[in-house]
């Protein structure tokens, strides 16, 4: 059991950090522009596919730099030529625009790389087991992912709190008009944030691609979870996104590892298992329910604590 706890904790923190790489960009974009970017997970997917393509030609390490930059450029272009034009039609139109964009990106990826998973592999330099905990070999690549994600988190934090650009961004979050009055080009700051946010999602894609499966439905699988993270953490709150990412990451990995159902519990307590119409409910194990736990959390949070865990503004 201890082995399970340790490994699951490691995996959970890892998944949580990956989520945070994406959620940080998403929540920054939201707090600046008021747009919930439906296409954010699509940028993650683009990161994975660009990473695959670049690493085919130049190897993994250049891909780790080039692919996120490419994704960031795509994101900035989307903001400049798409989102900015839609802005005058209001927030619903912006939401619908990103919704359509996610659709288009998925189709384009399918068109270029096909529906089947591509063969995006862990680089040979990291393809060994880092250490062994109670007979479980923990792959070095996962440790690399974890450290890399934490590194980016630290850099992001330093940039936001210690540099001039970070201060302007923070100011533009709350007082965009005043920042504009002071002579800063607010639309350009928006474009920058959108580009950097997309690039962060791209980074997550590049490093998650080899560990998970790189295929055209990866955005659709992860997108809703990402929304859960930013809403549960509190829209616009970076620290909230961090807490929620770790929470969701841990809950997901632990739930998958627990293979117990209500029926098992009742049998253990010597209570007969009901055999009524909904027999399924008693037989479903916690592991099977794992995919719906985040959504349950989302609905509960939105009903009982609409500002999210650490958020200050009402959705």
């Amino acid at each position: 059991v201890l082995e399970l706890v340790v490994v699951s904790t490691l995996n959970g923190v890892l998944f949580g950090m990956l989520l945070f790489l994406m959620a940080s960009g998403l929540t920054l974009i939201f707090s600046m522009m008021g747009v919930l970017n439906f296409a954010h997970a699509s940028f993650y997917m683009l990161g994975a596919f660009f990473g695959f393509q670049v690493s085919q030609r130049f190897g993994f390490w250049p891909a780790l730099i080039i692919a996120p930059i490419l994704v960031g450029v795509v994101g900035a272009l989307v903001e400049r030529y798409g989102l900015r034009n839609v802005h005058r039609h209001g927030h619903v139109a912006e939401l619908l625009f990103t919704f359509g964009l996610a659709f288009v990106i998925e189709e384009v990826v399918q068109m270029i790389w096909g529906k089947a998973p591509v063969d995006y592999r862990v680089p040979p330099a990291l393809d060994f087991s880092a250490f062994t905990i109670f007979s479980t070999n923990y792959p070095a690549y996962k440790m690399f992912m974890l450290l890399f994600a934490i590194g980016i988190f630290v850099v992001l934090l330093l940039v936001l709190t210690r540099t001039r650009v970070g201060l302007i961004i923070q100011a533009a979050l709350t007082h965009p008009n005043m920042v504009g009055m002071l002579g800063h080009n607010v639309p350009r700051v928006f474009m920058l944030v959108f580009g950097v946010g997309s690039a962060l999602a791209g980074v997550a894609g590049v490093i998650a691609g080899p560990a998970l499966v790189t295929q055209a439905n990866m955005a659709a699988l992860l997108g809703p979870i990402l929304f859960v993270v930013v809403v549960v953490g509190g829209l616009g709150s970076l620290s909230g996104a961090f807490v929620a990412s770790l929470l969701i990451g841990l809950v997901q990995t632990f739930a998958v590892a627990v293979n117990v159902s209500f029926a098992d519990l009742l049998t253990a307590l010597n209570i007969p298992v009901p055999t009524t119409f909904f027999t399924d409910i008693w037989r479903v194990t916690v592991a099977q329910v794992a995919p719906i736990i985040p959504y349950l959390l989302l609905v509960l949070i939105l009903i009982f604590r609409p500002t999210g865990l650490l958020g200050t503004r009402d959705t």
Partner: protein
Amino acid sequence: VSELVPAATLAPARAKRRGTAGRYGLWIATAALFIALPHIFTSGTALTTMSLMGIAIIFALSYNMLLGQTGMLSFGHAVYYGLGGFLPLPLIPIVGGFAGLLFGVIFGSVSTRRAGTAFAMISLGLGELVASSALILRNFFGGEEGITTNRTKLFRIFDFSFGPQYHVYYLIAAWCLICMIAMYALTRTPLGRMCNAVRENPERVHFIGYNPQVIRFFAFCLAGFFAGIAGGLAAINFEIVNSAYVGAGQSGLVLLAAFIGGVGFFIGPILGAILVTYLQVMLSDVTDVWQLYFGLLFVGMVMFAPFGIAGLLMMHEPLWRARTLPRVVPAYAMALVTGLATLTGVLLAIEMTVHLTVKASDGPMMSFLRIKFSAHSVLPWIIAVLLIGVGGWLSRRVWPLAAAAFHEAMARARERRQPA
């Protein structure tokens, strides 16, 4: 959401005195059209397509009760559609309707407490919740294979056995007409008007003594009811229901259909449902990437025509009335030609790319607009680039002219209406 509805529709409805013929004529004509359609388009494909369109119309209209009428953006409307089809008695559409209503009441009581983005997020969460549960609760939902039904065991009226497709078509057409009339009538009731008021300004609704939450809840339940009817009809039509019915794809599709048609007008979702179904059936034969075109069409509509097809048509209604429409024809024709040229270039480029990537094993020979050529040769690529470049450049020049022509004609129309 008031941005989505053009200001023209916000004006108080003119109380027109019309005779019985005027009031019911449109519906009688629609009924006659529904009866006549299978005799005009007799092929099997056409019949199936029209059945699908009928279902899509009900579904899209029910969705518009939320988005267009009450201003609630839902990303999980397929839940009520799918559960309407899933009920143990999926054979009578009204039962599906009550299933949709039941779940509308349950989920609506939770989600309609909030409006705006929060409502959209809750609907997304609930949609994912139900879609995932459909895969988990295998006994009830039948897992991935779904549940099959047999429509010939349907409750029989007269000599209808519901075996042949045209029996099903008439069943769907009848329900479609009933639902259309019912939903149109609903927009005319005080509740329908209050829904519009909630969309425009919930605060003021509160001030005059209504509870916007309650109004949203009613709209939500009714939308669930009609979505359930559509789902029940779909279960009869396909004789199978599976978890894809409640999924995000279905929810997205109905949003696309309603929006492309135009959510600000009652007729909008009808147009959208017909167009989207038609494209779904026809495009999937012609090209492999029809969903891409779909997405591009949607993004294009959001960017350039946020009021949808119906909005574009209605924009020209004053011109039609004042007979100044011919004035815009030359400018529009130019815009159309340049636009079509650009579009052809884009389509050509996309199709050639598809041919070289996804269908690489089929060899380089392909046909576009019935012209056969090799996707490896340089000429078609040059043509595509030229079409996009020149067409796009000309479009940028010509389209402002078209807009100017529209405004000019509009000014004329105003002058004629109010002679100085």
